[in-house]
C-alpha cells in the first residue's frame, strides 16, 4: 500500500459518516431535522473510497443521499448539521436542508434531489474544465434507479462523445425506493449500459473500501490521462429505509441481515486488525475522536441562528453589483 495513512483515514472517514448519520436519525426523531432525510448507512465505502482519490479542484455532484459525500470531501460536520437544522450557519444557509448540501470551497455542486438531475450538470462541469484546459475530474454519484432516466442516457452519450473528464459512480444499492433493480431493468448488468457508449466500466465491490479506492484511482488516473469518462458500478446496499417515511414493505429482513454481515466498516476494521494495521485500541480512539467531533457538530448546529425572515428574497438573483 503506497499511502501508509490511507487505511486509518478511510476507516475513520467511514466511522464518521456512520456515527454522523446515526445522530441524524436520532435528531430526526426529536424533530430537530425535518423534511426528507435519506441515510447512507451501509454505503459508506463508496463515497469514502471514491472521494479519497480525488484532488483539490476536482468537483463532486451528488444526490439527496449525500451526507457521506460532503463529509468525505471535508465539509465541516457542524455546518452540514446546521444545514439540516435550517440554520444560517449551515452550508447552504439553511435554504437547502439535508438534500441540498452545497459547498463552493470543496466544489460540492449539490445535493440534487431530482433523480438523474445531477448528471447533465456534471457533464457541463467537465466540459468547462476541458475547455479551460484544467486537469480536473468531476465525479458524479447517482443510484441505480437513475439509470432508467433519459437524463442518464443523454449525459452518458455527451460525456463519451466529447471525451469529458467525468467519473460516473453508480451506487447500486439494488433498490430505488421500493423498486428492486429487476423490476426496473431487464438487463441488470449496469456496466453494459456504459458499453453502449463505448465507455470503460467496471463492477466494483462497494462494500470493500479498498476495492473502491483502487478502482477509482485507476479510473481517475485514466481520466486525467485524457481517456475520457469512466463508469464505476459500485455494488452496495442501504441498511436503513429509503427515507424516514419508508415502511420497507418491499424487502425482507433476511436480505437486509445478510448484507449487514458485509458491513463495510466491520469488515474493513476486522481486516485491519487481523493485519495489525489498526489495533482495537486505535479503533476505540477513532470512535472517541468521532464522538467528540459529532458532539461539537451538534453543539454548533444547536448554537446556530435563524436567518432573518426579511432576507427571504435573497438568492433569487445574484447580489453582484456589476450588472
Amino acid at each position, binding site marked *: 500500500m503506497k499511502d501508509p495513512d490511507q487505511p486509518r483515514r478511510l476507516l475513520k472517514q467511514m466511522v464518521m459518516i456512520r456515527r454522523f448519520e446515526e445522530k441524524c436519525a436520532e435528531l430526526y426523531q426529536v424533530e430537530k431535522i425535518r*423534511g*426528507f432525510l435519506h441515510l447512507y448507512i451501509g454505503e459508506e465505502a463508496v463515497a469514502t473510497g471514491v472521494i479519497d482519490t480525488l484532488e483539490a479542484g476536482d468537483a463532486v455532484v451528488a444526490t439527496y443521499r449525500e451526507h457521506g459525500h460532503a463529509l468525505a470531501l471535508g465539509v465541516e460536520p457542524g455546518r452540514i448539521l446546521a444545514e439540516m437544522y435550517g440554520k444560517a450557519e449551515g452550508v447552504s444557509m439553511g435554504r437547502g436542508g439535508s438534500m*441540498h448540501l452545497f459547498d463552493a470551497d470543496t466544489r460540492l455542486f449539490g445535493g440534487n434531489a431530482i*433523480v438523474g438531475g445531477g448528471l447533465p450538470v456534471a457533464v457541463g462541469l467537465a466540459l468547462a474544465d476541458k475547455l479551460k484546459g484544467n486537469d480536473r475530474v468531476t465525479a458524479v454519484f447517482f443510484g441505480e434507479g437513475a439509470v432508467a432516466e*433519459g*437524463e442518464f442516457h443523454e449525459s452518458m452519450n455527451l460525456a463519451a462523445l466529447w471525451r469529458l473528464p467525468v467519473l460516473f459512480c453508480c451506487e447500486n444499492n439494488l433498490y430505488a*425506493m421500493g*423498486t428492486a433493480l429487476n423490476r426496473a431493468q431487464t438487463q441488470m448488468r449496469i456496466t453494459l449500459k456504459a458499453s453502449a457508449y463505448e465507455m470503460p466500466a467496471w463492477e466494483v465491490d462497494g462494500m470493500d473500501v479498498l476495492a473502491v479506492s483502487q478502482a477509482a484511482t485507476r479510473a481517475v488516473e485514466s481520466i486525467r490521462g485524457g481517456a475520457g469518462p469512466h463508469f464505476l458500478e459500485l455494488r452496495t446496499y442501504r441498511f436503513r429505509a429509503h427515507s424516514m417515511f419508508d415502511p420497507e414493505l*418491499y424487502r425482507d429482513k433476511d436480505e437486509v441481515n445478510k448484507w449487514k454481515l458485509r458491513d463495510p466498516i466491520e469488515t474493513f476494521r476486522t481486516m485491519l486488525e487481523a493485519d495489525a494495521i489498526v489495533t482495537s485500541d486505535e479503533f476505540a480512539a477513532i470512535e472517541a475522536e468521532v464522538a467528540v467531533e459529532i458532539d461539537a457538530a451538534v453543539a454548533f448546529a444547536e448554537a446556530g441562528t435563524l436567518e432573518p425572515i426579511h432576507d*427571504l428574497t435573497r438568492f433569487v438573483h445574484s447580489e453582484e453589483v456589476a450588472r
Partner: protein
Amino acid sequence: MTVTEPRHATVTMTYREAVREGIRDAIASDDRVFLMGEDVGRYGGCYAVSKGLFDEFGDERIRDTPLSESGFVGAGIGAALGGMRPIVEVMTVNFALLALDQIVNTAALYLHMSGGQFNVPIVIRMVTGAGRQLGAQHSHSLEGWFAHVPGLKVVAPATIEDARWMLASALVDPDPVIIFEHAALYGSSGEVSADSGPVDINSARIRRRGDDVSIITHGGSLAKALTAADELDALGISTEVLDLRSLRPLDTAAILDTVAHTHRLVIVDEGWKSVGLSAEILARVSEDALWELDAPVMRVCAVEVPIPYAMHMEQAALPQVADIVAAVHKVLDR
C-alpha cells in the same frame, strides 16, 4: 317530475383513503382501468395512497414503473390511445417537469392534430405543493402551467368528497385530465357520501357563504381560506369562500357571481404570483366585472422565491392565514 333527493349515506375517511377508494372503485368496475407509476405497487405509493391495492389487484393493474417520467407518462398516453383508461401517477409535479413533452405535445395535441380522430382518455394524478420542508426542488405548485394548455383539463380536489369522487369523473372524460392532490391534505379527514358516483368536474363551488368579501382559492389553500373566514367572522366580517375545483376550464360564471355579490375579492394561491393562476382569475374579473369592484383585488400567493428548507423561511414564503386576513382587511379598508 320532481323527486325528493334521498340523503346520501356518508362515511368518514381521510383524504388519502378517499383517493384510494376512488382508485379501487375504478379498477374494480372497469377492466380498462389500471394504475401506473413509480412505487405505486410494492412500496404502497410514495404517500401511501395506493397501499394495499397491489395485493388486491396484482402487478398488471397496479403497475410499478422504472424512474422514467417521460417514458411512462407517454406509455400511459399510448395505452389510452389503445383503448385503456390509465391512471398515471407522477409522484409529484416537480418530477412532471420531465414529462411535459408528453403531456403537452402529445396528450394535449393528438385529438386536434388528428382532426378529431384520436382522443386521449388518460388521467394523470400528481402531488403538488409545499409546506413540509422538502426544499426548492420538491415544493413546486405549478397548477397554473397546466391550466394554460388547451386540450388539458385540470382539477384540484380540495375536499375529501372531491378526492373520493373526482377520479371517476375524470375517467369518464374522453380527454386528458390532470388531478392535483396537495401533499398537505392526505392526512385530513372528513365525511364523504358513500355512493355519489361521478361528480361535476367543471364547476367551482361555494364552500362558505358570505356577504362582505370573497376569497377564491383551490386545493391546499382552501383550509387556510376557511380558517381565515372564521377569524374574520369573529371580527364581524362575512366572507364568502369559492373553491375553484376545476382550474381548466375555470368556472368564470361562479367567479363573477361571487364578485357581483360581495364586490371585493382576495385570491389565494400557493403558486407564485407572476403569470400564475391568480393572475387569470384577477384578469377575468377585471375584464368582465370591472364596475362591480369596490376595491382593487388582492392576491395572496407564494413569495417569488424558490421555496426554502428552513421552517421559518418556508412558512414566510407561503400564503398564511394571517396574510389572507390582512388582505381582506385591505380590500375592505377596515
